[in-house]
């Protein structure tokens, strides 16, 4: 049972404080803040204990969302709840920041009152909540056309801007007055996270894909939406790996509101989206990549002079030629004693630097077209170099994003709203793949 809920700014200011059970004092906020700021990096941060008081917190939007308890509740329940609370706050207030929380404190108190009673979680569904909530949201930013240019994909924090001209990320869903941007829009995002380990011999050792389909809905009323996925989508480790380009996932989970009666035969998800953001389907694929891994690295590490290591990296992007990878960054751990580095890069928009703190060199490439191959040479000075310290080079880790790409090949065939909306309704479908953990061993 949740005893208290509070929201703190990153500086520890009290933004929201609500006591549900009267069994703890308000001092616990300060106790929590002291504990969380004293936490060192290698301690698990989720659950903290002070005497018989347990704090569970998440960080979102630069704020601490904290629940405290004196009993033995499920940390999953509380973490899930805090994440939902943050998501709802974002839905209701438009964005998630210290300022928007401050401005809408009355609304958030009202939400909390309906969501939790005596520490029991009641509901987190916008559909139910909208029946009870009286307070109007106050948008922290006036709507302006200029803002359109720097709005990202709401589901994934990317810098990629031109995908959909939308104010999705910073608009309260519930505003009834002030018809600002009151467009009938619905967004469907397919987001995949890729984690890959490639052995030193170039063999793919492990590949996992975690994917999800998220929708954000601004339609005031929407009775039913049908999302059509690839017809040849296979689920489970089936033996029929047959001939063609069948798309396969190991396992999938659906939002409670998704109706699956047409899923088995036609791969159609039926959902009545409530306003706001929700994940309708999560899926994963383990140990198999339907396509080649997007990057291959050909490294060579040599001892040059007495105190210098030569690292030559050749990186090839195996995406189709029309696609591009963005924000590619490559991190190579270097020997502990490294003091300085010089580099030869193939184009001026790339950068590379030695990061003495993490003992690694970081090579960044803003755009990397499919089929291209880039190479770079790094000379690292290491006083007192021994043959053993060459072993400290590697493994290489990469991060990147692939817009308009899904590695599983999952596609959305169609998006139908029924009954057909009167007036203009805009439907957006977006795809993106992120690197979750992409490791290449040397």
């Amino acid at each position, binding site marked *: 049972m949740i005893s208290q809920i509070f929201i703190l700014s990153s500086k520890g200011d009290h933004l929201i404080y609500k006591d549900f059970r009267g069994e703890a004092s308000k001092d616990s906020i300060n106790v929590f803040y002291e504990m969380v700021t004293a936490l060192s990096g290698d301690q698990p941060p989720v*659950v903290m204990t002070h005497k018989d008081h347990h704090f569970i917190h998440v960080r979102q939007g630069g704020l601490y969302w904290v629940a405290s308890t004196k009993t*033995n509740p*499920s*940390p999953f329940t509380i973490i899930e709840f805090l994440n939902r609370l943050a998501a709802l706050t974002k839905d209701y207030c438009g964005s998630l920041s210290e300022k928007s929380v401050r*401005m809408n404190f009355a609304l958030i108190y009202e939400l909390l009152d309906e969501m939790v009673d*005596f520490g029991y979680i009641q509901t*987190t569904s916008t559909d139910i909540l909208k029946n009870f909530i009286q307070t109007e949201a106050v948008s922290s930013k*006036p709507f302006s056309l200029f803002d359109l240019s720097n709005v990202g994909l709401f589901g994934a924090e990317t810098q990629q801007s031109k995908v959909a001209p939308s104010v999705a990320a910073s608009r309260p869903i519930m505003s009834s007055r002030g018809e600002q941007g009151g467009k009938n829009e619905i967004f469907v995002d397919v987001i995949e996270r890729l984690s890959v380990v490639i052995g030193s011999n170039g063999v793919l050792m492990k590949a996992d894909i975690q994917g999800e389909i998220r929708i954000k809905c601004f339609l005031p009323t929407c009775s039913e939406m049908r999302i059509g996925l690839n017809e040849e989508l296979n689920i489970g480790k089936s033996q029929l790996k047959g001939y063609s380009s069948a798309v396969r996932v190991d396992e999938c989970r659906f939002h409670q509101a998704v109706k699956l009666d047409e899923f088995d035969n036609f791969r159609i998800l039926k959902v009545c989206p409530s306003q706001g953001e929700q994940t309708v389907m999560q899926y994963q694929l*383990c140990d198999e990549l339907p396509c080649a891994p997007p990057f291959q690295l050909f490294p060579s590490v040599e001892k040059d002079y007495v105190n210098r290591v030569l690292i030559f990296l050749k990186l090839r992007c195996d995406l189709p030629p029309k696609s591009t990878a963005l924000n590619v960054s490559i991190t190579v751990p270097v020997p502990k004693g490294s003091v300085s580095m010089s580099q030869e890069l193939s184009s001026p928009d790339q950068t590379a630097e030695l990061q003495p703190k993490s003992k690694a060199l970081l090579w960044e490439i803003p755009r990397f077209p499919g089929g291209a191959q880039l190479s770079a040479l790094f000379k690292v000075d290491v006083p007192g170099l021994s043959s053993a310290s060459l072993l400290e080079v590697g493994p290489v880790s990469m991060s990147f994003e692939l817009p308009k790409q899904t590695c599983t090949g999952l596609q959305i065939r169609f998006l139908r709203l029924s009954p057909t909306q009167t007036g203009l309704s805009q439907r957006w479908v977006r795809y993106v793949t992120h690197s979750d*953990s992409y490791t290449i061993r040397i």
Partner: protein
Amino acid sequence: MEWASQLCENRGLGSKMTDSKYFTTTKKGEIFELKAELNSDKKEKKKEAVKKVIASMTVGKDVSALFPDVVNCMQTDNLELKKLVYLYLMNYAKSQPDMAIMAVNTFVKDCEDPNPLIRALAVRTMGCIRVDKITEYLCEPLRKCLKDEDPYVRKTAAVCVAKLHDINAQLVEDQGFLDTLKDLISDSNPMVVANAVAALSEIAESHPNSNLLDLNPQTINKLLTALNECTEWGQIFILDCLANYTPRDDRESQSICERVTPRLSHANSAVVLSAVKVLMKFMEMLPKDLDYYGTLLKKLAPPLVTLLSAEPELQYVALRNINLIVQKRPEILKHEMKVFFVKYNDPIYVKLEKLDIMIRLASQANIAQVLAELKEYATEVDVDFVRKAVRAIGRCAIKVEQSAERCVSTLLDLIQTKVNYVVQEAIVVIKDIFRKYPNKYESVIATLCENLDSLDEPEARAAMIWIVGEYAERIDNADELLESFLEGFHDESTQVQLQLLTAIVKLFLKKPTETQELVQQVLSLATQDSDNPDLRDRGYIYWRLLSTDPVAAKEVVLAEKPLISEETDLIEPTLLEELICHIGTLASVYHKPPSAFVEGSRGVQHRRIPPRAGSVESAESPDVGQSGSSEAPPAVIPSQGDLLGDLLNLDLAPPTSTVPSVQPSMQMGAMDLLGGGLDSLLGGDIGGSPSMGAGLGAAPTVMPAALGGAPAVGGGLGDLFDLGGGVGMPTGFYVVPKTMWLPAMKAKGLEISGTFARRGGIIQMDMSLTNKAMSVMTDFAIQFNRNSFGMAPAGPLQVLTPLSPNQTIDVSLPLSTNGPVMKMEPLNNLQVAVKNNIDVFYFSCQFPLSLLFVEDGKMERQVFLATWKDIPNDNEAQFQIKDVHLNSDAASNKLQGSNIFTIAKRTVEGQDMLYQSIKLTNSIWVLAEMRVQTGNPNYTLSIKCRAPEVCQFVYQCYEMVLKN
């Protein structure tokens, strides 16, 4: 905070009201201003004012002075304003209880409002006002709301019962709210059901014995139906409640499992984990050969794997839970090794947990893959992680024999890197590998010796010294190596010093000619220059051994060592079972039972997994017996301090103990070992030394003799006397009620409570043994440490049938007083070792001295007088016995029942003086004078004895006998 409002104005928002301006700093007279605004006629203005008040409240300012003004705003039809006022009330009502009464009328009125939102709001808020006076007004509205037509009101009222119960439990019971709440379990609305279940579960926890949540198949069925319809949070309440239910048979258990399984694919990980908890618990009841059991195992894996795709915080929580599940049922995840491979960007706490699980899942089938990964990890940057990875390689070698060779060569590769902490960690694990596979990998010793200089951590130094000592005959310059360590002997940690002492003694026994000087040096360093008692004691033992009988010394010091166990860091089985019942909760993250961190009675009940169906009824079928033995808890880990217990455990556990009836010969064999082990425990403080194993080889001591007495007769005789004692004497020996001697938590599920009695001149130890573990216990035996009065078991422990789970057996053990004597502190302390097929457990208890008062303790009057004078006055002790409401005759009668004999009585000035004598089993006489004044409940007792240390305990006996 002003910046926020400025910002808004700058953006041309001046006209639009925003909440942030309420945070503008308070100035003087602000309260006054707010007061005026609150009393304004305009609704909008009022609302703004209340918002300002609440804003101040949030940042911690005291706005309680505005209480009456805010309450005045309460009567409004504007819902938004009403909610704000209620928010204020909840916060300040407690500090202003008298004022809060002002609000009651409005609450009561609101509970009748046609709008269900307002009805629910009123009843919810009233419950949150934790003021006693309000509760009486709350009852009637609450009763109505519990039967409201609107489910939203009903679900709010259900929670309100729990709130009220928290404030005034008696009231809730008197008003019959609990029954209404029970009825709500059958409500048509799933949300109401969920809240009723949640409220009842919480109330039930504070009444552990009530059957509030009367779970029977019908209610379970209702809950399962509601499960499909209610919100995700309601599903969690219901699943948690289901987890407390114990199905009647395996069929019911299977049908519940079938209906819970669909929850495993829920998107909310909290629902998934609660479902996993229910399944893990109920699975225990399913027969393992059932097809469905296998299906269920397969279904559990994917949701657990999916949990690992969450953010690191949730991953960590998930991993802690998976760690438990893997220990309980490794088969669930045995094919999923790859998902536990670490990612470079995992936080360190996630990496360490994953590593732990990897080792638990390592098997012959996947060892190659695991080793390749571990080798990669060992070259990473993070020191802690690297260390653990190296250690993990060693654990793999010990766990999977086929891989040992590869593990050793991997470790050697790592030693070649010369990275300091890698080398040290590798040497520590290689020592364990040597112990597990003796005489197999000694060829690597040369490589190890090259790295001697780089070792700076005590554990690594100790490991290296152990290796040198153990293999001294193969290392040509062993004496030089050890000598080099000896130079800085005093700067070393205790661990290293002890190890060095033992290693040099080993070396001396192997190569006596060249190392005489060295051994003398180390012995004198240990015995004369050290002030560490452990080191000194061990030094003296070696010294005496070497000087009296070098052959015996060789047998002791170079004895064969017991094998080390494969699994390390396993959670103790009873704790594991309890934790499995708490999957998904904080307990599973801390790996501690909830009673360890939750205050008060809440959640303190220990939960148990229900026993597997059939294992009790059909105990005679050999099949089940087998499965019982495979369930036997694995041996748990030599942590340094417990080494002795562990060594005993390893050798004692008879490998084929599944035969249900215990044969006497077998019991005897086990006894011998126990006797030897215990003696070695008493022999001196050498626990933790590798030479400890020698203790096991020692010749059996007194025990066989004691066993010689016909066991059956002993017990029967005791019973006879028991009967005689009960009938013959009106005021018999007072027996203290049984107290807990050994809690189940400390003894792998065996719980012992007991007391002592003297019946017809025979001392008996009455014990109740309870099996709280999952597996059958057999082969019980008992042994005492030497004690002050030479008490020893006069026969074996009569537990002839195996003790099945949850069974309790009462045994009476006759005791003799001619065992070995050693003075204990306190005098009446008795240290006991009990052995069963699982382990040996030690506990100590204290017996009342009256146990030792013999029947012929009545002294001649003259002798009494002479003795009293003869004992010096220094030996006299005086005590007060308070609050005894007996006259002197009754008291003397009562005392006689416990063999305290009154020899003479004298009455002086209304004061009775009683002169009494007692004789102990070891023929010590105790004389006493008791003064009893009529009308005064306080007695004065003077005790004289040649051994004055017993006086205190004699007094305790008086106190005990007279007051009971």
